[in-house]
């Protein structure tokens, strides 16, 4: 089974990388008022069904893939 995890800086947390990207985009002439940079983790995993996959990936996020102090995560399971 495949799963995609999107890890993002929490709302309200200063994201210096996003700020730099926003600055560069504005420099290129794009009217961007905000940019936030996160990361995508593509996973291939063994799971009984979609629910099991979702549970497993949630635990992966809680233990390793995201730091709850500063990041949020969103999971998409693809059969």
């Amino acid at each position, binding site marked *: 089974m495949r799963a995609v995890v999107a890890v993002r800086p929490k709302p309200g*947390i*200063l994201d*210096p*990388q996003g700020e*730099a990207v926003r600055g560069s985009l504005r420099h290129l002439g794009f009217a961007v008022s905000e940019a936030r940079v996160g990361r995508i983790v593509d996973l291939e995993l063994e799971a009984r069904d979609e629910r099991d996959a979702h549970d497993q990936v949630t635990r992966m996020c809680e233990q*390793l*893939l995201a*730091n709850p*102090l*500063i990041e949020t995560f969103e999971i998409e399971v693809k059969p």
Partner: protein
Amino acid sequence: MTGRAAPGEAEPEEAVASAPRPRVAVVTFPGSNDDRDAALALARLGAEPVSAWHDDELPPVEAAVLPGGFSYGDYLRCGAIARFSPVMRSVAAFAAEGGLVLGICNGFQILCEAGLLPGVLRPNRSLSFVCRDVAVRVERPGTPFTSRCAAGQRLVVPVKHGEGCWYVPEHVLPALERRGQIVLRYEQGENPNGSIADVAGVANEAGNVMGLMPHPEHAVDPLLGSTDGALILGSLVDAARSRAAVPA
């Protein structure tokens, strides 16, 4: 003044011959690069450094140092992968029993990720790697890591990091301040990374685990511009020695 000590040997003027040399582990993770400097500094300050490998148990020691570097390539988040190294289980157990643990730079990041210290280290606000001497102020003397320092003492110690911006949610900070967990703060105008409340070094609630971004092990020889780091590592050696002296 005698000649320079070879690596791993104590300078005669620092190590009092009669003082026992407490054993202090220096943990090497894949990508650690300040482990040898830390061992050298500890030896010069009168300790017996003991190498500990990331996939081993912590050997019997009076204190442990997690040195700087780029463990596991800083992948995912700094320290996030190293915290699952086998050695970290015994570091956590050692800390839970009151063992002294000091994390420097990447070691600080690992201790935060492992939940042994509050907060997390984020990319510097400037997004630049910063490598220079900074001045820090001792906010809390009298800890096992600052017993040789006076309250408010100004220490000059180098930093070299890209992700040293210590962060805790705003509402958590007052409790940490109240409990005296903020041990070191960058002097005004010296904050190299944008850390919240200018924090440079923080301890756990029990006070036996501390992490800091500046590198005391790089400031123990006048040749390198400052010996203020010896006050921090020397305090640790003193504390480790007094623990070694307590009969089990």
